[in-house]
């Protein structure tokens, strides 16, 4: 029965997430609300990650598989997006390079700032 209880907890969180998503004034994906709920439960020790281990492993391991039907949905709309397809591929690649560069620069900046703070604290001590 262990796995049934795990599924119960996870599905319950999903259901709560959808409810909260409906009453939120701004659109917010219910899965992300569920993520925040579970994170808070873990943080405040309402639940331990090993209590959900088997179900979590199943969902994480088969994550990629779960996208097949959504991906197959492309065949339904392909005629409509035929002309946008190549630009889309190009945009995905170029923006990934830009995102990488921006993130790396920001992290390096933040690390330098932390080191500068630490050095100043040492000096004043």
């Amino acid at each position, binding site marked *: 029965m262990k796995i049934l209880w795990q599924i119960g907890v*996870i599905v319950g969180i*999903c259901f709560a*997430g959808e409810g909260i998503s409906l009453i939120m004034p701004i*659109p*917010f*994906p219910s*899965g*992300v609300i*569920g*993520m*925040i709920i*579970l*994170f808070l439960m*873990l*943080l405040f020790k309402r639940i331990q990650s090993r209590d*959900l281990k088997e*179900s*979590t492993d199943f*969902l*994480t391991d*088969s*994550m*990629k*598989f*779960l*996208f*097949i*039907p*959504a*991906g*197959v*949905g*492309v*065949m*339904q*709309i392909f005629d409509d*997006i035929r002309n*946008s397809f190549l*630009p*889309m*591929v190009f*945009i*995905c*690649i170029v*923006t*990934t390079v*830009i*995102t*990488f*560069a*921006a*993130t*790396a*620069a*920001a*992290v*390096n900046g*933040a*690390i330098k700032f*932390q080191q500068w703070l630490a050095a100043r604290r040492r000096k004043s001590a």
Partner: protein
Amino acid sequence: MSEWLSSPFFGISLSIAAYAIGVLIQSKLNTPFANPLLIAIMLVIAFLNIFSISYEDFNMGGQIITMLLIPATVVLSISVYNQLDILKKNWLPVIVGCLAGSIASIISVWLLCRVFGLDDKMTISILPKSVTTPIAVGSSEQYGGIASVTVTSVIITGIFGTVFSPQLIRLFNVKNAVAAGVAIGTCSHVGGTTRAIELGETQGAMSSISIGITGLISTFIMMFIKFL
């Protein structure tokens, strides 16, 4: 025949069989270009076309699989929680990096979509492409995007990150392991992270933390897209 094929077990069986072939092909060819998900999607599309089976029949089972994406998103928080210690030590660089990366990603996608004259529906569908798929699909659908376009753009981004992360590190001369990890996770989610894990323990951990954080931050930024 059509009654048989509209059984939900058809779509589920076909998806699992196609994925099994995808995994087999990848293990034989051993290249990140042979992405099992991409292969499975193409196999299913080919199968449905060859036997003239409608997407609706396939999706009787397909929608049951798609439904599982929400619980799969929820349990992503477990991996962030499990790495809380390493996050506490590096919280400032991680959060600053994910924030900068998310903003850069969304603005650059939006600008390029405008340059190429893509319509609003396409643009919204591509906007969350650097975020892990379940969150990306959630965001896209909330704003009227097309889920399957979002899935496709996320996969393309993931494959690019898996293949070219080491080249990107060299191109931008990123010496710090934390910076490399956060940058890989922020720009190419799980795809890049599988490569980051090969590069080193710090890179792998920072990359996987960044997936969840970028997902959260991007969801918040997406709330402002109506102002674009």
